[in-house]
């Protein structure tokens, strides 16, 4: 008695999932299912390898195109863009760093729009604004934080002070 051809894909899928949960040496968990590229993002953070980051970015963009309302994917993309920023800063490429930080901020903001209860996303965005200021783009950051202020930089710092005051309150389970 042989197996019908139509059952092969299902069997392969079951085997694939089983091998993933055994072979990686980690138990299958809800968080792993929620963040399929989480391990790869962490690996890229450790190495800051540009090719690895490019590949990860492409995968994330593809997944976002398929799941445009997934806050976790945007958060991962924001982190990858932040690692690009690290690479460009170390290379002292200010133009590329400026572009990377804007993309990281966009992705983090999109993640927060989709899930405003993520402490990770809020803290990442706060970090990114801080880094944008230290990159010397304070005027641009201030404009996005305080659009009506003529004296933008002081208001930006007041916003930062509010972030400081509210920091722990932003930490919520996601």
């Amino acid at each position: 008695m042989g197996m019908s051809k139509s059952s092969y894909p299902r069997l392969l899928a079951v085997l694939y999932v089983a091998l993933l949960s055994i072979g990686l040496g980690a138990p299958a968990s809800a968080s792993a299912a929620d963040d399929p590229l989480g391990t790869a993002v962490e690996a890229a953070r450790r190495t800051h390898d540009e090719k690895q980051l490019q590949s990860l970015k492409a995968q994330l963009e593809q997944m976002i195109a398929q799941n445009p309302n997934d806050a976790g994917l945007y958060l991962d993309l924001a982190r990858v863009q932040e690692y690009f920023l690290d690479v460009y800063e170390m290379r002292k490429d200010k133009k590329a760093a400026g572009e990377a930080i804007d993309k990281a901020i966009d992705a983090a903001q999109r993640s927060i729009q989709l899930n405003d209860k993520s402490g990770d996303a809020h803290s990442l965005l706060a970090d990114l604004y801080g880094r944008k200021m230290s990159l010397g783009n304070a005027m641009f950051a201030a404009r996005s934080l305080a659009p009506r202020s003529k004296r933008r930089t002081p208001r930006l710092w007041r916003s930062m002070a509010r972030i400081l005051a509210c920091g722990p309150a932003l930490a919520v389970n996601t």
Partner: protein
Amino acid sequence: MALDGKNPRVWASLGRQYLMTPKMFGGDVAKSIESFQKSLAFDSSQDQTWVWLAKAFQKQGDTGKAREAVQHALSLNPGSRFALATAASLEK
């Protein structure tokens, strides 16, 4: 919405903000050290937070503790460019 003060990333972010913000706008090196230590108490495997702790100790003028913290980071992630650059800056 359930509040959770046990998110290590948020404590680390708070520490960076205390460290990087000018004193007149709320920056505070001692509070940044507290925040990094709290973050590491929740998850001591964050090599980058050990480096930030080293930077905070360095800013406070405690080079010995800064070296210890950066060595801890390097033991967790020997290839970390951030840790290596910070270690180098401590030897200058």
